[in-house]
């Protein structure tokens, strides 16, 4: 009994060690976004709160916390409260199976990829429930559009993951990373290059980020599914969106770029030079590259039209993934080296 309690406390401590840096990263991602996009548009971005505006996320959080909670009269109260929680919970809980290092992983489960697919799928319930429970036309339209879009890109995402599973021969995330060992040319982004692109594009669409942000569409349906939310309800949706961005970036780097593996492995002189760098540094660096790509996309691209989004999802990404699953299948059966021998 006592042992069980100790074990439980240990698990909770580990979870806190994962969650606290994650939440800080989420807060500073909002700052980084405003700063990076600011510089891309020849502005300076937030620079008033603290040095270089570094206090901005904290000031924002305090402001949102002090705001009044508005319950729209037309809304379904319980579902209205539940929706933001349902979109934040999976974005955080997915981190339970993410390996940070050779041995740092909270739950090294065999069905890791399946769990991730399930968790990223739950996110759409939050949006759909928010749109329905708000009982407002804009929220309803935003939720419908977003649900159809997320669901369409999830198919492409699932097929891309099938390619990764075939190449790795396991659904355990550590095994997937270990099977990419042996240098940068062993990483899956080379043999699975089309799937890598499809997974990344679907990930951007899945998080409802520009250029696929039909769910919000400020200029046409004001804010889409969260138009009725105020204060903390809005803040939780906001947290969920940014936590999802970090999650998708981490997943792309695990599935296609070798997670915590060093890019200099197997290169004669460089591999020794960088041998002291811990794996988690490479993992964070790779994740960071994709986070910057998210911000860059937002600063560069205009919003897609809805029929274009659906066409890209159904008529481009899904056929590409199906064809590439066959290609990978043949490559495995013929033991194509150096990836599938």
């Amino acid at each position, binding site marked *: 009994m006592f042992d069980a309690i100790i074990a439980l406390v240990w698990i909770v401590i580990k979870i806190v060690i994962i969650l606290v840096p994650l939440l800080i990263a989420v807060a500073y991602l909002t700052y980084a976004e405003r700063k990076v996009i600011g510089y891309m548009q020849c502005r300076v971005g937030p620079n008033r709160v603290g040095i270089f505006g570094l206090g901005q996320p904290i000031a924002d959080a305090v402001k949102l916390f002090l705001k009044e*909670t508005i319950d729209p009269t037309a809304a379904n109260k319980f579902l209205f409260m539940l929706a933001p929680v349902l979109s934040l919970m999976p974005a955080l809980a997915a981190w*339970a199976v993410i390996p940070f290092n050779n041995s740092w992983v909270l739950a090294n*489960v065999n069905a890791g990829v399946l769990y991730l697919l399930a968790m990223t799928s739950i996110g759409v319930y939050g949006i759909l429930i928010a749109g329905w429970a708000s009982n*407002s036309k804009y929220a309803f339209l935003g939720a419908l559009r977003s649900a*159809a879009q997320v669901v369409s890109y999830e198919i492409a995402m699932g097929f891309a993951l*099938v390619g990764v599973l075939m190449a790795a021969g396991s*659904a355990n995330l550590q095994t997937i990373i270990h099977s990419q060992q042996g240098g940068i040319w062993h990483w899956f982004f080379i043999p699975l290059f089309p799937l890598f692109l499809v997974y990344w594009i679907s990930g951007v669409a899945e998080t409802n980020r520009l250029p696929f942000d039909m769910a919000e569409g400020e200029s046409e349906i004001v804010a889409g599914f969260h138009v*009725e939310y105020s204060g903390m309800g809005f803040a*939780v949706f906001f947290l969920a969106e940014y936590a999802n961005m970090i999650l998708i970036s981490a997943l792309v780097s695990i599935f296609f770029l070798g997670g915590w593996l060093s890019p200099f492995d197997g290169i004669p002189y460089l591999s020794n030079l960088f041998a002291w760098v811990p794996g988690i540094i490479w993992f964070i660096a790779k994740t960071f590259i994709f986070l910057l790509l998210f911000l860059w996309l937002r600063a560069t691209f205009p919003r897609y039209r809805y029929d274009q989004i659906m066409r890209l999802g159904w008529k481009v990404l899904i056929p590409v993934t199906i064809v590439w699953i066959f290609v990978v*299948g043949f490559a495995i059966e013929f033991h194509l080296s150096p990836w599938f021998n």
Partner: protein
Amino acid sequence: MLTNYLPVLIFILIGFFIGCAPLLATRFLIPKKPDAEKNAPYECGFDAFEDTRVPFDVRYYLVALLFIIFDLETAFLFPWAVVIRKIGWLGFFGMLVFLSILIIGFIYEWKKGALEWE
């Protein structure tokens, strides 16, 4: 075996709590001043013209149906993908037949215009 999944369960519960805590805290700590205008559904400053529960485009329903078929397909592909190295050519061609049936259906719905959004 199943004890591996205990941290996952606890993580889900803690994630749920992190979502709930700020919502409940602001609900009870921050003063509220309800107002009929403020609490009305947003519609560009007007009173809402009609009920929100209006008919919507049937194509959203169609997308949902297609999604179920394709998502089931991914669920079938997952276990096959994990063991493909062990089951050899027979397993590979088995899935080839299965996938080509899906592809025929996909071509059919494409030609029927189920994927058009004009």
